[in-house]
């Protein structure tokens, strides 16, 4: 899995590429927590390149959401692949995350 981040005017955008599971969730955890600890509380995660997520991956996204919500920030997701959308639906995660179809629309929402 590859995790990269990019600072934009309205928010920071994190791109995830590959599988997010027990073998690598700590990479994303470290990146998100570093950004949040630095005071970034407007984060967008672009999941267009993520083709699989397990429970441990979902846990990190949930952790980040909770931390950012506490600081009155905004944490959103965008560009989910169809199979990831289905996982989010069945896990109830579509009820708790702001999810956008494209990065462009998502960035405008910040």
């Amino acid at each position, binding site marked *: 899995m590859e995790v990269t981040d990019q600072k934009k005017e309205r928010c920071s955008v994190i791109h995830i590429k590959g599988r997010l*599971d*027990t*073998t690598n969730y*700590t990479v994303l955890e470290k990146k998100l927590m570093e950004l949040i600890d630095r005071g970034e509380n407007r984060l967008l995660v672009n999941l267009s390149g993520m083709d699989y997520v*397990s*429970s*441990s991956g*979902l*846990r990190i996204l*949930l*952790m980040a*959401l*909770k931390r950012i*919500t506490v600081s009155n920030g905004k944490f959103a997701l965008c560009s989910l692949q169809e*199979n990831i959308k*289905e*996982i989010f*639906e*069945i*896990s*109830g995660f579509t*009820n*708790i995350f702001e999810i956008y179809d494209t990065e462009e629309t998502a960035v405008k929402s910040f």
Partner: protein
Amino acid sequence: MTRSIIRYPAALPYMAHYIHFTDPNSPEMHRFLEGIPTTPGTCFFIDINKSTDLKYLGGLPDWGRKLNNTFNFISLLNDFPDNIVKGIGDEIMLYIPDGELRRKHTFTTYYQLLEEIYSTVDNIRNFPVPEMFLPCKVSIHYCTEVYNITFFKGANDYYGRDIDLTARLMTKAVENRIVLSERFYARVQNDLADLNLPERYGCVGKISGKFMEQFRGVPEITEYRILDA
């Protein structure tokens, strides 16, 4: 939404040895039973809390919805559907033979399996929308004394003293807690060493010290640990 949305490779054909002899003293039965091999693997029980209370408080639409959501959360997200041996009410028994663990889609080691179960319990505990899921408790044991047998045609099941022990471990579990036998913990530690990861890596860092208990019906003292979400 249908339940076919998450597609994993087809399950391996773990078929139980069917035991059915009409003669109670059949010498063939004795020989047949002697020849059945053990099926080492990981057994775990997941018990959904509070569902019994709910049945007295509300109707099927309420408790049925929460059980549906919780069972989906547990089984579909974790590549467990093929490993559910049986469910009794709000408790399910799962068994993953070693040979199958290495071919899984989501996890291939005992450490990864524990991490996924922990994440599931933790996600349910921290889910910000109330009334969506029910909390769980879990017991896990690495089994060697287990036989993939059934006495009922067409059924798949696992019997053996290690299955009984896994059930006993559940007596030490409470809501949002995973109770793991020392034997399973040792497997997790072996995996961490193989992966060149620290002994307290990930959720393993939250596992307690060792407890000992003489469980009912188990002749030896059992060592176990707990992991709270």
